[in-house]
């Protein structure tokens, strides 16, 4: 019997495709997310917008809080560890979460290395801003990628930039001849074998989701049309005026991302979206998307 292999890890990501993964901070929010049609929840103590407001070091959440959420819902539960903090990841694996997010939203614990994700039975999702970063994470064992947005802003511009960057680099790579792959691997700082795979298949070897700054159904539809296979929503649901309604609308928008007639109906009368914080007003050193190496 085979357990904890990359096929089982990406297999769960396959099941999450076309869905929405929502940040929740307590069992009540988790229930609202599940009832609204979320296909998974991300359990954390503070949504990114609050981490940004409060400052300080952001760490893995209290396992008892995550456990409360695992008991409250039947859908998969994910939780975040700090970049490079393999001890936090070990604790989350022991707890039995369904996916671990090695996340730039928390304060990085290692400024050179990421977690060796092959060493874990629990699958990992990691963020990336470009193809090289995505392939380094996959090389370390990530079973799902999410292109990074600027978390906690409600500003979609970074998510769009990074999703476009990854898809553009994949397209370029697939036009190269075999003789050019090694130089491209060097330029990207990515493992040659993975560069070869992407060049031949024209897509990442693991599912590619998008995250960061999603605040409306239209934002979610935009990312899906740009090639994301599912969407993470952080602060966008529970910082909106009517979370249950906004959550359900974003779920529908992912399903009907290419159907403007349905999107129009979905977008009507939702109440206010999160206020948001334009990404360009944030000091460069306070931006989260740049974390990760």
């Amino acid at each position, binding site marked *: *019997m*085979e*357990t*904890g*292999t990359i*096929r*089982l890890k990406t*297999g*769960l990501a*396959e*099941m*999450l*495709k*076309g*869905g929405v993964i929502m940040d929740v901070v307590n069992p009540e929010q988790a229930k609202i997310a*599940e*009832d*609204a*049609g*979320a*296909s*998974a929840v991300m359990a954390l103590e503070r949504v990114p917008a609050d981490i940004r407001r409060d400052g300080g070091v952001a760490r893995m959440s209290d396992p008892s809080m995550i456990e409360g959420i*695992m008991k409250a819902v*039947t*859908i*998969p539960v994910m939780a975040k560890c700090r970049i490079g903090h393999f001890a936090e990841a070990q604790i989350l*694996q022991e707890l*039995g*979460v*369904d*996916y671990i997010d090695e996340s730039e939203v928390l304060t990085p614990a290692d400024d050179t290395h990421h977690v060796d994700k092959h060493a874990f*039975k*629990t*699958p990992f999702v990691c963020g990336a801003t470009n193809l090289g970063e995505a392939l380094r994470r996959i090389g370390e064992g990530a079973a799902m990628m999410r292109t990074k947005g600027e978390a906690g802003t409600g500003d979609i511009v970074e998510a769009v930039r990074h999703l476009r960057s990854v898809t553009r680099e994949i397209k370029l790579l697939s036009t190269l001849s075999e003789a050019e792959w090694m130089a491209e691997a060097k330029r990207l700082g990515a493992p040659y074998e993975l560069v070869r795979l992407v060049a031949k298949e024209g897509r990442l070897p693991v599912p590619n989701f998008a995250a960061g700054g999603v605040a409306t159904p239209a934002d979610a539809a935009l990312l899906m049309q740009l090639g994301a296979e599912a969407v993470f929503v952080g602060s966008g649901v529970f910082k909106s005026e009517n979370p249950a309604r906004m959550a*359900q609308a974003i*779920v*529908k928008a*992912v*399903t*009907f991302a290419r*159907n403007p007639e349905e999107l129009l109906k979905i977008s009507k009368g939702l109440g206010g979206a999160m206020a948001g914080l334009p990404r360009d007003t944030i000091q460069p050193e306070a931006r989260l998307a740049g974390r990760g190496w």
Partner: protein
Amino acid sequence: MNIGVLALQGAVAPHREKISHLGADMTEVRLPADLEGLDGLILPGGESTTLLNLMAAYGLEESIRLFGRFRPVWGICAGAILLAQRVENPTQRSLGLLPATLQRNAYGRQNESFIEMLPLRLPGRETALVEGVFIRAPRIADIDSGGEVLARRGEEPVAVQFGHVLATTFHPELAADDHLHGYFLELCRKAGTLRAAG
């Protein structure tokens, strides 16, 4: 032949590859109108609560129930839960097309997901060993009489058939072989011939 795959959420893409490899067309189903003219329907793996929610919002519960009365339907993992007459752990609404009880998340969480080789006994064919990919899988707790068990894991049924309704708790769309997709397409072909004759 045109096979529909419910495309509200979940593992849709792998079915497209299997179906086109077997020479049939595949249509993504999101609205009741998409069911028109289809020879069969696959309810794929995904999250059953998400699928139920969207099915209810877009009037698909009633139209799939009607479709499944006369045409072949195959539920996989979450899709099998949607088809069941009874759902446990916890109880939830379902289409009631499969006379069986399905128990959700019966093996545990993702760390307990597994792949195991299973003997598949399809009517009129030799027993084949196929890959059973079980991801946060449900369990078929009991089946009413009249059902046929196509595969067991130990004593437990993991693939069952009631007439033109098929259910598997594992994911043939993620396996290397295409035995079950071939079998479902054959069911659809036969049902189509019967409809044309009748």
